[in-house]
């Protein structure tokens, strides 16, 4: 029934940043995998769990173009994530999903893409980035602006390296003032201000923005200044969730159930929500 998760086997794990892990999971049962393949689209999330500890919600960080496995990236903080972070290859964890809506990337075709992410919020963006990069020909220019508090806090460092060296991706990295290392070559400054310097034209451009609430707020302002229409800016919202299927009643912001109607929203939809409920 609806609360019964899929058993998943840990294939590998990677330390992304202090306290931040990525787990690569494969399906134990064929039928679960088939279900996932049939239903997963980029932007969706799931509940990752360990029996005995519980479940925790985060996005599927792998793209819809790669459905052989699920990757998830999370910060070790509570009871579940602490245990998940301990999982090694071969261990069994669980996954319930995919849930929620998705980034409408068909609609992005032929357009320029601007991805903006802050800190631990790169994973949801990364899912869309790869979903698009894996079909690179369908889209226009791709710009990725990613910032973190310090150099150590940047996640997916190996992929950042890869994007950096791709001709068809413009990667802009930045760290908050004070977070740079002596050999840091990229930008220093907060994402919104860097964005104003490096952003492509708003014309025919879709922006995908993920980050902590405070960053989202200032970045939306910056995008506004740059002429982006709120309906062309997509973001994801994350709230505490337990059921993931619109029953348990905790994730709503105003009348919106994040788990059912989200987690992907346009900036226009977000600004229609009661801001203090976010």
């Amino acid at each position, binding site marked *: *029934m*609806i*609360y*019964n998760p899929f*058993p998943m086997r840990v294939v590998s794990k990677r330390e992304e940043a202090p306290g931040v892990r990525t787990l690569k999971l494969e399906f134990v049962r064929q039928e679960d995998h088939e279900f996932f393949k049939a239903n997963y689209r980029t932007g969706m999330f799931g509940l990752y769990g360990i*029996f*005995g*500890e*519980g*479940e*925790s919600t985060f996005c599927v960080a792998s793209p819809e173009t790669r459905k052989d496995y699920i990757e998830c990236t999370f910060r070790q*903080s*509570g009871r579940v*994530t602490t245990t998940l972070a301990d999982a090694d290859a*071969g261990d*069994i964890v669980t996954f319930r999903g995919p849930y929620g809506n998705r980034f409408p990337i068909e609609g992005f075709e032929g357009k320029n893409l601007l991805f903006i992410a802050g800190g631990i919020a790169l994973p949801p963006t990364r899912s869309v980035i790869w979903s698009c990069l894996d079909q690179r020909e369908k889209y226009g220019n791709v710009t990725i602006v990613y910032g973190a508090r310090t150099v150590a806090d940047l996640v997916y460092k190996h992929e950042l390296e890869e994007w950096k060296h791709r001709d068809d991706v413009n990667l802009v990295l930045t760290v908050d003032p004070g977070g740079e290392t002596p050999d840091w070559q990229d930008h220093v400054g907060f994402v919104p201000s860097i964005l104003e310097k490096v952003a492509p034209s708003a014309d025919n451009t879709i922006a995908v923005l993920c980050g902590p*609430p405070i960053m989202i707020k200032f970045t939306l302002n910056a995008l506004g200044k740059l002429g982006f229409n709120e309906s062309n800016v997509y973001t994801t919202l*994350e*709230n*505490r969730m*337990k*059921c993931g*299927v*619109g*029953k*348990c*009643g*905790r994730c*709503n*912001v*105003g*009348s919106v*159930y994040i788990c*059912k109607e989200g987690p992907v929203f346009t900036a226009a939809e977000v600004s229609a929500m*009661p801001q*203090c*409920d*976010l």
Partner: protein
Amino acid sequence: MTRILPKNRLDDCIAAWRSAGFSVLAPVRRSDLSRFEEVERSEDMALDLVLTERTIKDHFFPQTEPLIKYSIKKHDIDTQEMVPPERKRVFFGVRPCDASGLAIDDPLFGWDYRDEYWFKRRDNAVIVTIACTTSDDFCMCSSVNLSPDSTKGSDVMLRPLQNGSGWQVEALSDRGNALLGPISSILKEGSDATASTASVPVRFDVDKVMAWLADPASFESHFWKEISVRCIGCGSCTFLCPTCHCFDIQDEGDTYTGIRRKNWDSCSFPMFTMHTSGHNPRNTQSTRWRQRIMHKFNYYRGKFGVNSCSGCGRCTRQCPVDMGITETLQAITNLTK
């Protein structure tokens, strides 16, 4: 001429249903608490109560429900899904507000993902409602477009006879009709007058309330702080509410074996929305009270076309600090005068 269930045949009625495979649940007062429990004899029933303290929701959405039993092995995990029993049950003597509560929650539990824990019980339950002839200071069904003899959510409606000898019986659904089969010989025809239903005053103007709540400006109103100042943040109003349905999922057990459970949770609790980061979107009692009212009289209606309140008044009746929906909605009504 209508069908009558004579009070003095109630025991026969119970026996007939039981032999037809039904469990019969009715209001019972035991250990200083009134609630629905299985009964075998009519004398165990407490049908004269205005309302049981606990709702019948308990029997469809239990306060704690095992979902999955797990057992961790060295290389594997055994899981066993715990399925609720498909037990045929008659709920006898339900009040219209409680019956409505079930109907109000049905769409939520069926919203895209069907929650079988609810529906396996719903589908096997027959709700026999008794119209109210008495009410108290807290009843407010009439304020939420229901009434002391509302049929919403009921399969069979019983209307007390004026002479107190029994009830006029009306089947409202196929399930209700089917339930009357085993007791057809007990029912008799009659034309006794029914007692007048309780008169429950309208305590607030729900339309005005809905309009005010729908106004985005109301969300940030200072009103919420004032009205909720004495709320202590317990969950008794939500847990005694026939329509509140929020829950938590928890794993519980020892080192290797345990049960994943679905437990009632309450929007009154700060932990309800607390992120692991420590950020809490609803970090004050006033925002939580606002959520409760908004959810019941604005959001829920937006999703499912109905307000999530059946007017039982338990929230106020049981509140340790004498708060409740009525007071708030009266105040909103007054705001918009």
